[in-house]
């Protein structure tokens, strides 16, 4: 019964979303206030219907209703409750439902929190939001219905792929989707602005919190995915330049560019058409990502069972969205006029450089991601493009960008004062040279990366010190200045500092990580990166829905690291749980392999240098974005 209600709610949401699109757009065209005011309630009703629908699906998973095909294929009685719930989006149908749920959440948010927006702009944005919702709801209902029944119902379900039975599944997809789909809001605002034929500084101010919200969620979502991929064996570590990873990285880069260009619109009334284009492109990247992940056209370690018919449907949606929005852009953008012109050496100039490099970076990632597909469709050649390609293209492009990140905040709006800006960076640059010289001997690129990370950290700190006039006025006066700095200033500093910390971790991992693979028997001592581990024992243990061999490793300080080999009888599958000792200087990461003889096991130990700083860095970036989001001056706009 509840399942049918959920299905009904889904259909109601589709119907509402169609009206949510047509009525407000018609209303704005013939200036009927009553039709325009239909937008907000419709968005809220659509969201409510989808909450009910999603709730019904969760209920089916929690109560193990195997008469629902989706539950039968992806769940089982014995599965722990956490994975019963997160298993809802651990499959194609459920994850698409989560996608539209979040989409309607943003639509409803615009309706509820957008009180300060002009009525027409808001109605149009909500209508566009409705259009995207209608397309995806059609997709779900006709090709991927999560409520389809299975008759007769099996006694037990097939279970969830054991590799996915992890806390990562509970956290990573919802937060990543919040970011992915959050970009739909800026897309809708951009389309609404195009329909209006006008972009004002106020528009930028209205849109900025929505970009920030999506960007923060996207950063956090990618971070969580990276952590999960790091401790799951065989997924290629914290970042592998896998197509599915790139699919989330391209919208992130576009959103990062957008975040910076919208500031130029707000402060200088310039760069308007470019900003609108970026808003369209960022969401197009989100859709492209959804297509790449859901269609399985690319070989990826993270892809799940895929269906080409569904891929086709998303491809059509993607094409309509891109062609439609770009046509609208070509038609309406010439009406949008920018008043400001500007110099290269100025704050806005630095922001333009940010845009140039992040967008070009996104372009190289895009080429590397889809080129294999392209080549395969025109020739017989099958290739894969892996980390070496991206290290040779994307990474060098980021070097000048890092310099711009350091110098930019010292530059004033409009003015041309590079010399005085560089004057502030003498100390940081001296440190860069010192670090570079000290580390020489290792691969030159990595050494330079380390030095650059240190330079950027110091540049950010120097900029903060300059703002609070540290050591120029009394410490007390500096502190009170520090308190008065706006949150968005801290947001920027923390996010930039986070970027530096991230580079430090990523390069450090590249430079200093080592590993050992060997056979070992209990009692053996293993030396790695200055540590001595004792392989103490292997014992057999029973989990809720699996049996496990648990290997114990003991560090010299007595810390125990356990890694497991689990066997899941329902799914008939084996998984490896790595053991981890997280430390600031570098993680010890242990893997228990197969038994090759009585009491003799294959083991693999990694020393992953500085790797934890990668996520501390990206977490700082999220925190910085969040602080900006909470800035009082922007909050009025929300």
């Amino acid at each position, binding site marked *: 019964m509840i399942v049918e209600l959920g299905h009904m709610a889904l259909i109601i949401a589709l119907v509402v979303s169609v009206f949510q699109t047509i009525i407000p757009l018609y209303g704005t065209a013939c200036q009927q206030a009553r039709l325009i005011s239909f937008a907000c309630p419709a968005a809220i009703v659509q969201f409510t219907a989808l909450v009910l629908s999603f709730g019904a699906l969760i209920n089916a998973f929690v109560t193990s209703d195997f008469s629902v095909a989706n539950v039968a294929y992806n769940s089982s009685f014995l599965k722990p409750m956490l994975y019963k719930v997160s298993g809802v989006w651990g499959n194609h149908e459920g994850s698409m439902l989560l996608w539209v749920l979040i989409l309607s959440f943003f639509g409803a948010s615009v309706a509820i929190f957008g009180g300060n927006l002009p009525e027409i702009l808001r109605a149009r944005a909500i209508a566009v939001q409705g259009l995207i919702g209608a397309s995806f709801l059609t997709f779900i209902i006709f090709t991927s219905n999560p409520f389809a029944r299975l008759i007769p119902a099996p006694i037990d379900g097939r279970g969830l792929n054991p590799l996915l039975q992890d806390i990562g599944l509970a956290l990573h997809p919802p937060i990543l989707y919040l970011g992915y789909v959050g970009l739909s809001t800026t897309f809708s605002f951009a389309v609404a602005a195009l329909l209006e034929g006008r972009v004002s500084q106020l528009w930028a101010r209205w849109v900025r919190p929505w970009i920030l919200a999506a960007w923060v969620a996207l950063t956090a979502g990618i971070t969580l995915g990276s952590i999960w991929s790091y401790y799951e064996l065989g997924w290629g570590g914290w970042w592998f330049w896998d197509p599915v990873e790139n699919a989330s990285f391209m919208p992130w880069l576009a959103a990062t560019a957008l975040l910076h260009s919208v500031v130029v619109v707000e402060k200088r009334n310039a760069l308007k058409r470019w900003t609108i284009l970026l808003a369209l492109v960022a969401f197009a990247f989100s859709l492209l990502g959804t297509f790449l992940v859901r269609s*399985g056209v690319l070989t990826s370690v993270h892809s799940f069972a895929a269906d080409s018919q569904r891929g086709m449907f998303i491809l059509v949606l993607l094409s309509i969205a891109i062609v439609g929005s770009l046509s609208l852009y070509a038609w309406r953008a010439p009406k949008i006029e920018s008043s400001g*012109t500007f110099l290269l050496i100025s704050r806005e100039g630095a922001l333009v450089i940010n845009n*140039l490099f992040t967008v070009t970076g996104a372009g190289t990632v895009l080429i590397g991601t889809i080129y294999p597909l392209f080549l395969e469709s025109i020739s017989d050649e099958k*290739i894969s493009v*892996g980390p070496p390609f991206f290290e040779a293209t994307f990474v060098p492009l980021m070097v000048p960008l890092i310099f711009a990140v350091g110098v930019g905040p010292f530059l004033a709006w409009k003015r041309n004062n590079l010399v005085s800006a560089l004057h502030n960076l003498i100390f940081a640059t001296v440190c860069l040279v010192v670090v570079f010289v000290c580390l020489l001997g290792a691969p030159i690129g990595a050494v330079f990366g380390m030095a650059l990370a240190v330079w950027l950290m110091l540049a950010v700190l120097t900029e903060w010190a300059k703002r609070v006039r540290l050591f120029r006025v009394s410490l007390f006066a500096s502190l009170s200045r520090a308190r008065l700095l706006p949150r968005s200033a801290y947001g920027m500093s923390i996010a930039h500092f986070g970027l530096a910390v991230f580079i430090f971790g990523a390069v450090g991992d590249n430079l200093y990580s080592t590993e050992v693979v060997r056979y070992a028997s209990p009692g053996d001592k293993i030396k790695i990166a200055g540590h001595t581990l004792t392989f103490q024992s292997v014992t057999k243990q029973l989990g809720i829905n699996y049996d496990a061999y648990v290997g114990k490793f003991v560090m010299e300080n007595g810390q125990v690291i356990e890694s497991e080999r689990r066997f899941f009888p329902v799914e008939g599958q084996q998984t*490896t749980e790595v053991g981890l000792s997280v430390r600031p200087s570098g993680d010890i990461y242990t893997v228990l392999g197969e038994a090759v003889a009585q009491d003799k096991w294959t083991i693999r130990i990694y020393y992953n240098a500085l790797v934890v700083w990668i996520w501390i860095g990206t977490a700082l970036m999220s925190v910085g974005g969040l602080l900006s989001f909470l800035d009082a001056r922007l909050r009025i706009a929300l």
Partner: protein
Amino acid sequence: MISKNYRLGMLIGFLAFIGTAVALVLIAFEDSVVFFFTPTELQSKQVNPERRIRVGGLVEDGSTKRGPADAEIRFKITDGNTTVTIRYIGILPDLFREGQGVVAQGYLQNAVFQADEVLAKHDENYMPRNLASAMNK
């Protein structure tokens, strides 16, 4: 107002930048793209032993052997016509099974494929797409 020369300078700088990016991409494609081969293609085509490649096929039943070195594993993969021996040092992925599809990345040296990576996917029914299309020919 900004002078024409300044605009021209900006334009040239921008084009130079895009040119650099394009050059980087082209050079990287030349050097770092990894080609995929089936065992039959591996035998019939000239493969540069210095070049990193991927091979894919089904793991032959009963072909997995250990040693002589620590953690060394040898197995054969087949596409139905030809087999090739893969040598790998390390721990095989959880989804590695005889009779199942697998992709190895590494170098072909003296008719033995020295893998530095053996790939398997999330999906239990996984057959690498490259392999599936190669085997359906």
